[in-house]
């Protein structure tokens, strides 16, 4: 394809996207001259260029649309629903031809006669009633049937502007008399381009540049390389004081560069959100629902490839909400709700994730129906179902083959279930959460990582080789010393199990799995490390020989031959220059057969979440700071970082850590930082904890152990003492995380975050 045609395709598609947005806006503000002008220009540009490139079919169609738009713009017609539906059909028609051009470089030989006819008919509104058969035949052939029906229109509110939903007035208002002039005159009349808009266009293009995605991918790769090289240089120069300054500078520049390139790949979620007004408009007409769409946080940015990946799951969720969640207006009214339902799309960033929420105020999910359906489909047994709580039942809709849709509609219920949504999101390292309140509504929350290419991973050793375990799947690490191995690891007829806080955890020995012939009788004599993994809800312990540092790894694809093995999701180059295979916890679980019972376990697991929390409450991480011991509640510990002292920076007088733009206050009550000051090579251990919604770090010298705390009672009164616990028979003070003073943050944002956490949330009543 030549450069000119490609340019034209990109430009036209952008123009049509803009037109689509404008059209849905137009429904709300039918008199808006600027919108009409915008739409007119999109079509006009296409017409002009196609004539030049010799695409006759496209030109003819665009020309017909332009005539109609010209009349609308000049106020000779009013943009009523018929017109807008017609224009949307025109848009689809134009898009279809562009697609053909893209694929084959020719326009194809479809017949646009009916569509052109429709454009003409719409220019004579009075003729519609007179020549009804003509209009109907034209509209039917383009499936504009809903226009004729009295489906309630969808109104769209952007950015949560709380104005009352306005129905397009024009539906009632009589259309202005059509011009008596024949169409040709209108078409031949000079079309003045709005000079104002043109000026705006150039201003925008001056500061932006269109860049090939392949180039960006290549840059990302190279930056990944640079990160690797930097890691190696940092390791190699760690002992040479002459190079410290240089390597630190390299470290900084690399981090900045990486961030910039990542930013260049970012796109606002509005690029995905923008197609929803149209989808919702069409769907609400088809399903006879009244729906108001509210979109928030459209400026939130996400990596382009991730945006592509969430497009389908999101569309599916929205369809579900409309089809199963939001009730028909009559039902809503009967239930005392606003007949117009609200569908909310919300995006916001939360640390290294972007959260995308699809929430509706529909009927919610009927857990009883979910239970019955799951039994009917043979997904769970009757007894199990009887024992499940509400939350666990909700999780059932993510099982493959689940659908509560009574009838298969052409909107949802066609077998593409919520399991696909979950699989797609998990494929990119995200998570799906579901909340539903019967009668109140449902919220589906997609938790998407900011980037794909670089992931945090824990490096483990097995078979004298390094492997990388994605941190996302890792929930905790357990060390089993050699002398305890024989008692701690229990065997049930050849199946190794470990008692983790009273619950049996299936174990998988990595070395045995990777080298089937291996004899592991000598296992008792060495250290065992159990990485407790959670892969798609399947919990198991992976036994490895050793642990190395966590590292940010750059994922490199594997060749097809190695991908076929199934256990590796990629490979990476470590700071030491060694290669490491990236383990795929999901496939490891499947191969070991954790899959089936894991599904149940996950469901059962949530049920016991409360209990488990109670257990973890009394478990503590024993740390040592400046030769004093202290306990940190294990449930609050997020991770432990070993960092050079130089990473600590100061915000005012307070020590803080900068984790890729996330500021972490570091508490130094033990005086560890102060004591190490002046020693440039000092290393520091920071225990990162959760305190409410924020994260805080605690500077310590060492992490000693994890132990269950015993209650201590005040002598005489026998009341439980607070802030202190008995750990390994020593009285140990508990670190009060709440006492760590918050960083001064923008109070508005903080407010936002809080509402994000507390707000009720959920998903459609029945899910396909």
């Amino acid at each position, binding site marked *: 394809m030549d450069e000119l045609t490609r340019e034209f395709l990109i430009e036209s598609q952008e123009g049509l996207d803009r037109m689509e947005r404008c059209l849905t806006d137009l429904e709300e503000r039918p008199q808006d001259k600027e919108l009409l002008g915008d739409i007119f220009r999109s079509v006009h540009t296409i017409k002009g260029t196609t004539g030049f490139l010799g695409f006759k079919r496209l030109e003819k169609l665009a020309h017909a649309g332009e005539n109609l738009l010209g009349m609308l713009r000049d106020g000779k017609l009013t943009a009523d629903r018929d017109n807008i539906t017609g224009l949307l059909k025109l848009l689809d028609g134009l898009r279809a031809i562009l697609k053909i051009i893209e694929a084959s470089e020719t326009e194809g030989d479809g017949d646009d006669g009916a569509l052109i006819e429709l454009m003409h008919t719409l220019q004579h509104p009075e003729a519609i009633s007179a020549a009804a058969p003509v209009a109907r035949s034209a509209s039917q052939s383009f499936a504009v049937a809903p226009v004729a029906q009295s489906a309630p229109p969808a109104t769209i509110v952007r950015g949560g502007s709380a104005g009352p939903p306005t129905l397009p007035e024009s539906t009632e208002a009589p259309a202005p008399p059509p011009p008596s002039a024949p169409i040709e005159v209108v078409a031949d009349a000079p079309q003045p381009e709005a000079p104002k808009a043109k000026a705006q266009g150039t201003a925008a293009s001056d500061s932006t540049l269109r860049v090939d995605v392949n180039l960006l991918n290549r840059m990302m790769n190279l930056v*990944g390389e640079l990160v690797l090289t930097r890691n190696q240089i940092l390791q190699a120069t760690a002992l040479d004081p002459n190079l410290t300054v240089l390597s630190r500078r390299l470290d900084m520049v690399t981090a900045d560069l990486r961030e910039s390139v990542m930013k260049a790949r970012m796109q606002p979620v509005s690029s995905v959100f923008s197609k929803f007004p149209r989808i919702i408009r069409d769907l609400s007409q088809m399903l006879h629902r009244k729906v108001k769409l509210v979109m928030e946080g459209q400026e939130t940015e996400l990596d382009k490839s991730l945006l592509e990946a969430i497009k389908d799951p999101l569309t599916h969720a929205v369809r579900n909400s409309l089809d199963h969640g939001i009730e028909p207006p009559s039902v809503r009214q009967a239930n005392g709700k606003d007949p117009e339902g609200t569908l909310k799309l919300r995006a916001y960033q939360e640390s290294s994730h972007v959260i995308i929420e699809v929430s509706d105020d529909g009927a919610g999910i009927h857990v009883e129906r979910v239970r019955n359906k799951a039994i009917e489909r043979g997904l769970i047994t009757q007894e199990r179902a009887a024992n499940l709580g509400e939350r666990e039942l909700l999780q059932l809709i993510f099982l493959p083959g689940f659908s509560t849709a009574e009838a298969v509609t052409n909107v949802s219920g066609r077998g593409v279930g919520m399991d696909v949504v979950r699989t797609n999101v998990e494929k990119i390292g995200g998570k799906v959460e579901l909340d539903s309140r019967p009668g109140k509504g449902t919220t589906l929350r997609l938790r998407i990582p900011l980037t794909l290419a670089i992931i945090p991973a824990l490096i483990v050793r097995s078979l004298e*080789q390094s492997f990388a375990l994605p941190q996302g799947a890792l929930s905790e690490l357990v060390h089993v010393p050699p002398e305890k191995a024989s008692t701690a690891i229990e065997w049930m007829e050849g199946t190794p199990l470990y008692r983790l806080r009273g619950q049996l955890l299936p174990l998988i020995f990595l070395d045995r799995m990777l080298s089937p012939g291996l004899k592991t009788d000598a296992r008792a004599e060495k250290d065992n490390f159990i990485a407790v993994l959670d892969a798609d809800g399947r919990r198991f312990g992976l036994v490895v020989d050793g642990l190395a540092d966590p590292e940010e790894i750059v994922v490199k694809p594997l060749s097809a*031959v*190695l991908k076929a093995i199934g256990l590796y999701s990629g490979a990476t*180059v470590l700071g030491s220059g060694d290669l490491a*295979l990236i383990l795929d916890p999901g496939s490891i679980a499947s191969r070991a057969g954790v899959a089936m019972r894991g599904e149940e376990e996950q469901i059962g697991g949530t049920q016991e979440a409360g209990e488990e929390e109670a257990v973890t409450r009394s478990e503590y991480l024993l740390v040592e700071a400046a030769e004093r011991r202290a306990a940190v509640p294990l449930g609050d510990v997020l991770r432990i970082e070993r960092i050079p002292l130089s990473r600590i920076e100061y915000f005012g007088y307070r020590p803080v850590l900068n984790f890729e733009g996330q500021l972490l206050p570091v508490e130094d009550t033990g005086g560890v930082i102060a004591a190490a000051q002046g020693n440039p090579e000092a290393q520091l251990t920071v225990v990162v904890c959760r305190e409410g919604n924020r994260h805080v770090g605690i500077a310590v010298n060492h992490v000693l152990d994890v132990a269950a705390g015993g209650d201590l009672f005040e002598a005489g009164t026998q009341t439980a003492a607070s802030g202190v616990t008995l750990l390994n028979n020593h009285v140990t003070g508990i670190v009060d995380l709440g006492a760590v003073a918050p960083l001064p943050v923008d109070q508005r944002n903080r407010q936002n975050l809080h509402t994000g956490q507390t707000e009720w949330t959920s998903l459609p009543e029945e899910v396909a």
Partner: protein
Amino acid sequence: MNTQSSLASQNSASGQLARASRKDKAAAALVEMCSVRVGQTLFGVPITHILEIVGGTRPQAVPLAPDFVGGLVHYRGDVLTTVSLRQLLGLPAQEGKQDILVLESAGGCFGLLVDSVGEVLTVSSADHEPNPSVLDQRRRALFAGAYKLKDGLLVLLDPERLDPMRLGGLGASAA
């Protein structure tokens, strides 16, 4: 450089590098071959297929990979799958560092692990002979005939036949 070329072929299309695997009857063309040694045998790979020669690498083993995979190496920002010629020929694995020819084939790049890389030889397509029929099945599938040199044979390797994708498919059907 020890170039072995017959005078007769030198006056024919000298700059042209014909596909070595094709036997050209009429005008004998000159082909440049990178010679590599595995075990006792001298092999030749047309240099037009070689992207780079990386010496002294220590490939990272991949547990559970097919036998012919010699491991992974880091090559220019990518992770390269290598094919071990020793394994393919059924020779015992060699300890220590090995040389790698980075080859380009239809399925992408891959590395060929060899004992050592020798000089580039110029051979004439007139000296090419197809695989002898007595060669065992496995070798016949891998080799693309041989060139008769003054002091021995140069077994021609066709990168397409060594592509791990193809070998993987081959292994599956054989098993």
